[in-house]
């Protein structure tokens, strides 16, 4: 259908024009602005050297890594369980687990306050049990809880989809050869789910790096990188540094996705 070429090109043009005007050009501009402040191009160096930025970058990356690993373990166990067992209420349980799929970060921050805030559920319970309120919402723990809250639903979806595609005969074969549950997990399940887990993990990491709403609602003292960028931009009016930092943050995130893609040899973003 060679003659369709003109149509196909015509159909691509609007998207290409929008993307170029509102994404490619602005990103290039952001890069230039990042180097146009008091510090000049060394703003990009300062993002790594200046202790305040460096500390925040380290804590953001650490938090994201811990969140990613915890989410993969939790969603891996629950997802494989749901995919491999048939029982009454299974669909309801799956639906409930994936319902918060698109809750925005601000709302999730509020959910964390409901759980661990000053009037929250868990502090109230600990107050009754040990006479002390264990308030965790406004600390690193609160952020961690919020981040796994929004990562679990989407990761579970990916795991269930991948686990349903796994050939049940592989597990059968392993069992008939006398493999224990543990060996089935190590030798069959984890290798079989590896691409899906890597893809979901990469998305989880990228989302945690850029997450902002949760920290914003919790108004914590912990400065994750997006909060630093926001502060530089609004309170300090240091647009150049904000631009440089967000460019670096974007680059880090993109690198994580590219790395995961090189491991799986597949388009990682498919899990989004």
């Amino acid at each position, binding site marked *: *259908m060679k003659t369709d070429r003109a*149509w196909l090109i015509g159909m691509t043009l609007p998207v290409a024009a929008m993307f170029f005007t509102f994404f490619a050009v602005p990103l290039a501009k*952001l890069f230039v602005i990042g180097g146009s402040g008091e510090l000049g191009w060394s703003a990009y160096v300062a993002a790594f050297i200046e202790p305040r930025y460096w500390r925040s970058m380290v804590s953001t990356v650490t938090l994201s890594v811990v969140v990613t690993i915890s989410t993969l373990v939790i969603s891996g166990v629950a997802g494989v369980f*749901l995919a491999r067992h048939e029982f009454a209420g299974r669909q309801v349980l799956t639906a409930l687990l994936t319902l918060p799929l698109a*809750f925005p970060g601000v709302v999730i921050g*509020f959910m964390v*306050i409901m759980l661990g805030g000053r009037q929250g559920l868990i502090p109230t319970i600990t107050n009754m049990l040990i006479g002390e309120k264990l308030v965790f919402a406004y600390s690193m723990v609160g952020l961690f809880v919020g981040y796994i809250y929004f990562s679990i639903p989407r990761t579970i979806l990916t795991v269930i989809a991948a686990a349903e595609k796994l050939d049940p005969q592989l597990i059968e074969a392993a069992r008939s050869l006398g493999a224990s549950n543990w060996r089935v997990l190590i030798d069959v399940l984890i290798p079989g789910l590896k691409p899906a887990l890597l893809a979901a993990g990469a998305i989880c990491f990228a989302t945690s790096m850029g997450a902002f709403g949760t920290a914003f*609602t919790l108004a914590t003292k912990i400065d994750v990188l997006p909060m630093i960028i926001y502060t530089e931009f609004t309170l300090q009016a240091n647009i150049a540094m904000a631009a440089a930092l967000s460019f670096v943050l974007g680059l880090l995130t993109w690198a994580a996705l590219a790395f995961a893609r090189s491991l799986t040899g597949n388009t990682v973003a498919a899990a989004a």
Partner: protein
Amino acid sequence: MKSTFNIHRSPVFWSLLGFTIVVAAFLLVPVVLSILTGLTNNQFVGLSSGLTLKWVFKVWESYQDSLWLSLGIAVACLASTLVMGVPAAYVLSRVQGKLARTIEEMLMLPVALPGLATALALIVTYGALGNFRTHWTFILVGHFLFTLPFMVRSVLAVLLSVDMHTLEEGARSLGATFVQRFCGIVLPNCRSGIVAGSLMVLTLSIGEFNMTLLLHTPLTQTLPVGLADAYASLRIEVGSAYTIVFFMMIVPLLIALQLAGGRKAHK
């Protein structure tokens, strides 16, 4: 192996079930708590202070503008991703290979990059352009970039799963023009992808915060931005009531999304 009629479950089964239920409770308990708080007279006193709708009405009075704005932007966003995203998905399904992969990846970038970065980029580039900055379309542009890949991927996945080439070749040999083929064959065949993509676009646009917090102005406050404002400055019952309003908008969409996904999986 699915053990459908197995009554004697192993202890492993029960502990895994327990674990999964705990995870579900972790996700749902705060939702229930916030709904209850939004309907309680006084959260400090607790449920014994009585149930009321006064907080919900208060939110409705002071924040309904943000709700309409969010809905308007979501619908406009849906329209633009439909008009531009569906054809783009079709082109990508026709032009396979390295080029298509690269384009797909580029379209995905606004999702992969932190929303804050995209928003800043838009502001430094177009912030001073006439009154674009204070117009709601400024937010729309951000939402469009962020949601477009979800539409494209959803439609593309369906297009690649049917043998569109044979269908189209058949129609073409009977003299159908490109437009006739596109509207008569391509669009009806990728309906399920369009529906799923549309629901996803609406949900994401209504809930978008990372970009919108920077893109918005006092005149263009969307629902999630209003939520953040309410959480920060108003009493917890009002914040909760506002959350109820938000849930009422987004939960039906999420349920529809699950139903659409379920239908697709069972076909």
